[in-house]
């Protein structure tokens, strides 16, 4: 199962990196005539049953009141590949945009927003994970290495943070800061808050390993060869925690993605103008719109994919059959 998880995660990362190539439209572009347009899937078989190179049917508005569209099966617009810097686009763009996953309330391409949103969401989560690892490794390493009162002090703080429900801490910290901020500030602020909540997990794991490894012969050998504290800790003991640190990082990533989504969902995260999985889900807070246009829930699928990938990656191999 681990290769599957790795592949899934790599796929999502790749999609985020290649967003400008994969997305047929600009994530901010609003197609006024296509509010809440449904997904337009590429087709191979025409209405009269003939096979053809990939094409899409253009949309036709059926009811302005219900915002209902219908595919116009009598027309076919062929797709062209690898042209003008896009993986796939319509050969004739004068007959309306291609919205592979449909459009949102303002007629923006959901696929484009999903892909560019992946950059924001994964970016925040990765930055936060890095920061949490840094803090956690430092705190856990020092606690495990020094032992005694330092250990006691650091781990008490870590335990205290661990008991608190993370959502509320994040919420309270975010709500305590000015609401309207430039998007780079929101980005770094969120990463900082998440790191502040996430470090104890790393610290606990690292401390457990370091406290044991410290008593091993190789550590004593390093000390007797004249290595200083920092050298022993960072050069000799921390490499022993690699596995633990990796597993923690993989588990923190999806939880931070979720934290971003939660904050943006309740309106304390990224504004609507910055595509992120959370700011996209924010639209789903309108239950009626979500029920009529379920494709707006697509970021939920993306979050599921990343979380599933992480869970597959850390899954323990099955016990030997008996």
């Amino acid at each position, binding site marked *: 199962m681990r290769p599957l998880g790795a592949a899934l995660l790599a796929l999502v990362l790749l999609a985020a990196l290649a967003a400008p190539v994969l997305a047929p439209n600009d994530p901010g572009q609003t197609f006024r005539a296509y509010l809440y347009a449904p997904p337009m899937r590429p087709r191979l078989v025409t209405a009269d049953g003939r096979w053809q190179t990939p094409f899409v049917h253009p949309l036709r508005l059926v009811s302005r009141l219900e915002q209902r569209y219908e595919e116009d099966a009598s027309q076919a617009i062929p797709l062209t590949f690898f042209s003008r810097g896009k993986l796939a686009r319509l050969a004739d763009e004068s007959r309306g945009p291609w919205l592979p996953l449909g459009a949102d309330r303002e007629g923006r391409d959901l696929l484009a927003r999903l892909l560019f949103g992946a950059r924001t969401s994964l970016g925040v989560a990765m930055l936060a994970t890095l920061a949490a690892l840094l803090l956690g490794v430092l705190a856990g390493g020092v606690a495990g290495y020094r032992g005694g009162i330092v250990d006691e002090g650091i781990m008490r703080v870590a335990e205290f943070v661990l*008991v608190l429900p993370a*959502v509320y801490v994040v919420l309270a*910290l975010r709500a305590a800061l000015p609401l309207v901020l430039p998007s780079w500030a929101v980005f770094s602020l969120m990463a900082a808050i998440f790191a502040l909540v996430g470090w104890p997990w790393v610290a606990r794991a690292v401390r457990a390993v370091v406290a044991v490894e410290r008593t091993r012969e190789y550590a004593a050998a390093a000390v007797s060869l004249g290595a200083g504290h920092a050298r022993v800790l960072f050069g000799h003991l921390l490499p022993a925690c690699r596995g633990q640190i990796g597993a923690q990082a993989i588990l923190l990533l999806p939880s931070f993605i979720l934290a971003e989504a939660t904050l943006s969902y309740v309106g304390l995260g990224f504004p609507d103008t910055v595509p992120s999985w959370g700011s996209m889900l924010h639209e789903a807070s309108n*239950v009626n719109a*979500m029920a009529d246009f379920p494709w707006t829930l697509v970021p939920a699928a993306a979050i599921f994919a990343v979380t*599933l990938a992480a869970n597959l990656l850390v899954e323990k191999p099955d016990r030997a059959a*008996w």
Partner: protein
Amino acid sequence: MRYLARRVIAAAVLVAVVSSGALLLTRLAPGDFASELFGAGASADTIARERARYGLDRSPVSQYLDWLGRAARLDFGVSLVYHRPVAELVAQRAANTGLLAFVALVFATLLGLPAGIITGSRRRGPLPTILRGLSLVLLSLPSLITSLVLVLVAARTQWFPTGGMQSAGAWDAGVFAGLADIARHLPLPALAIALPLSAMIERVQSQSMGDALEMPFTLSTLARGVPHSRLVWRDALRPAIGPVAAMYGFVLGSLLSGSFVVEVVTSWPGLGRLMYDALRARDLYLVAGCAAAGSLFLAVGTLLSDLLQAWADPRLRRDEPGGTSGGPA
């Protein structure tokens, strides 16, 4: 007994620290109730007058000490937004959250525990494989997503109400109609919390079931002629339930977190929703009250989970003399 006393003190410290922290954080944050109430357009005069009216113009220290003194006498102040005593507001909302969390925990246990026993005691076969896959999927569907999907399903099929806790006027038809109405609103948010939680429980139960079945006593039980199913569901279950009981204390945090998200998505009138609104409005006494209630919930829950653990594993029941640290408060 000494152990219990120490736990109660630790719980009191937790509640005091968390609610004080919440109050001070809200007080020291830029902007306050008055500025949030009137927005950017208000004149400095209006805001200053309002501030004085609510006593927000004092120094943070004197305001905090004043609150602390009254809180010690169980007077948590008056909400600035609702103009009602914080204790009254919080108690009502906390009861709603408690109901939701309790039902969710029951759902999660009913789903997760048997599933974990099955996957932990059998390696092969279609049922354990399906359950294992299902649990992996549910584990990857956090409450935010589960609740959105359930709301979508409810809205399209009309099986359940999509939000709220009761319909207007349901209580007019009598107590039973009112309760039935709540019971109709409850499954959706409770399931949204319970599904990912049940996967967590399945994981732990499966692991500890596997461990229990590898202990020597299982072999001797089988040798006595006890059938395998009875071994699994009776003899091995009790030692295997310890780790799950230990997890319940840990789960409470995620129960509260999950319930916040679900309360917001399904507009369940609970503590999380109240805390969020209070934070947005900078209603600092209400924030502190919610934080106190939340941390009290946590502390009591951890204590209950420890008692449950002691019930499942008699070795823990021996009153440890002060040597071991009591774990997280």
